[in-house]
């Protein structure tokens, strides 16, 4: 019972975090590619409540001024934070067009919750937009893996004989691949300069197709044991067709395995995308992903000077921990 409640809480938390990312356009104050060359590595904007005229319920910010040792706040004018402001246009799901943003301040001040990167791009906006790419990569690649695994595992376990032998042989081949190196290799043989969308789908395809072997073996095991159950033999004796048996008795038995595997694979694949993009082999600039945002930290000087650029790492941890807890809860 406690476990069931835990699963429900985790699902709600996951749904909320995914929705935040889906509605990135609305929640993020600006576009992911919008640069501000006057504000490279600007620190997170501080929110104030107490100003020259006393306490305000509506928080306000100051504009940033660059000076010799970094940035300071220009205290001459207060910019109150407004909600539901008009800004750059975006589309949710690629369909619903809008230009209303959750919050924002009047120009020339900027409200950068998580500071800015080297090009003065708002890290918070990029974190949300990049989350779309990273999470979509993880989810789609998982879908590819599990579909392949379900089909191959079912065929292998249900058909048996030489088909089983052959498919399991191939799966052993895939298990014996050093997958990160192989990913590098595959990427090496593909053109280096592909459009961001092109790379994205290539990446998903490659990541998704490499990992099918382990879940396929699990599915095969479940199918094998389900196939030899007495009630399945009985149904077969009554003249049930293979398709009927698969649909009503065997495939439902594989669902719990597939669900647990999904909860395990999604964070793995999100991290895989991040790793490849970190190396510069995945999603390419200017499109943000958690991996290529972290790539800036390959320079040690950047890594230690600008803490807020570690935000994608925190997002990765939160995602992975939530999915990991879900996988644990589903497993028991």
């Amino acid at each position, binding site marked *: 019972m406690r476990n069931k409640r835990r699963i429900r809480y985790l699902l709600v938390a996951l749904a909320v975090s995914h929705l935040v990312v889906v509605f990135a356009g609305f929640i993020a104050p600006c576009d992911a590619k919008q640069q501000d060359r006057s504000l490279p590595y600007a620190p997170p904007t501080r929110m104030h409540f107490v100003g020259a005229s006393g306490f305000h319920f509506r928080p306000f910010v100051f504009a940033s001024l660059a000076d010799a040792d970094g940035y300071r706040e220009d205290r001459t004018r207060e910019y109150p934070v407004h909600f539901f402001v008009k800004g750059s246009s975006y589309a949710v799901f690629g369909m619903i067009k809008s230009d209303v943003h959750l919050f924002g301040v009047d120009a020339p001040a900027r409200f950068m919750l998580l500071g800015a990167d080297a090009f003065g791009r708002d890290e918070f906006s990029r974190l949300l937009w990049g989350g779309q790419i990273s999470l979509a990569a993880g989810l789609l690649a998982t879908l590819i893996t599990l579909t392949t695994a379900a089909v191959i595992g079912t065929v292998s376990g249900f058909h048996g004989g030489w088909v089983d032998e052959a498919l399991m042989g191939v799966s052993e081949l895939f298990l*014996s691949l050093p997958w990160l190196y192989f990913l*590098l290799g595959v990427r090496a043989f*593909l053109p280096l300069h592909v459009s961001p969308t092109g790379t994205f789908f290539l990446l998903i395809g490659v990541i998704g197709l490499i990992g099918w072997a382990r879940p396929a073996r699990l599915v095969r095991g479940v199918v094998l044991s389900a196939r030899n159950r007495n009630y399945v033999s009985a149904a077969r004796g009554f003249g049930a067709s293979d398709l009927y048996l698969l649909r009503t008795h065997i495939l439902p038995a594989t669902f719990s395995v597939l669900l647990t595997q999904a909860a395990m694979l999604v964070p793995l694949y999100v*991290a895989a995308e991040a790793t490849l993009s970190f190396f510069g082999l995945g999603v390419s600039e200017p499109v943000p992903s958690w991996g290529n945002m*972290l790539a800036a930290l390959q320079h040690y000087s950047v890594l230690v000077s600008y803490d807020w650029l570690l935000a994608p790492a925190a997002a990765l941890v939160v995602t*992975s921990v939530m999915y*990991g807890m879900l996988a644990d809860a589903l497993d028991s």
Partner: protein
Amino acid sequence: MKYLARRAIRAFALLIAVSVLCFLFTEMAPGSFFDEMRLNPQISPETISNLRSRYGLDQPLVERYGHWLLAVAHGDLGYSIAYNAPVAPLLWTRALNTLLLTTTAMVLTWLIGVPLGVWTATWRGKWLDRIVETGNSLLISIPEIVIALGLLAWAVRSRAVPIGGMISLSHDDLSGWGKLRDVLQHLLLPTAILVLAGVSIVVRHVRASVGEVLDAPFVRAGRGLGIGQVRLLFRHVLPVAASPGITLFGFSIASLLSGSLLVEVTTGWPGLGPLLLEATFARDLYLVIGGIIFSAVFLLAGNFIADLLLMASDPRIRTGGVNAE
């Protein structure tokens, strides 16, 4: 013996399949090393086609693969186009660096992980175990890239350990012991990342398998017969619980060459990882293929060693009673 022979033949067949796969991919790929050259007006098309034929890139796929296979049988993995040197020695020097790092990390991981796993298994359900288990599940789900960046940020800031590369600039001036100390100091950071990323998996597996055996009726019977806790654990529980651990150990050996790519690149350890990454960007065909084959050999050898260990420890496999797939 028959079982082992079968495994060995299978491993060999898999290796062949991996190499075929690599060659197929190179054939399907649109670009090549010489594409960049073609844009250079100083290099004539004749030079490029000469180069292509020198590296055998103008031959059909099957022929190329045949040549390559024959060369590999003689211990020659081909020629790196970017480094203008044979691939095998290039890979070997880098692979030794990688092995130094990963073996150290593996030994430490297991030295920490196994006692911790056994210890928490005997304390299951108590608060101490809960703390370790919670910490462990958190650690297990933190991606390696985050661990690497976190530790790196800490190391750069605190200057507690040297960062980047394997030796200091003054390495040549140091005495014999000084050199060893220098390398060991550089080893600290990448090893720490690898251990942190790997130890939680070992703890979890050991804890699960030992815990399962501790619940078995024969252990309760042993306890009822008055066998001491320590003797019970070491003589009766651990040998039974060892099998899954040994399989995992095999995986550890298997990933000795390929498991540290990320750590090597982020900390600048001059191992196989950075070499292969550069080769990828340069589309240095034979180097990439060689690297993949190299790590695949290790993977298969690791699995094979795991089989050997399993056979030594589990009589059911020795007698052929169970197929240990």
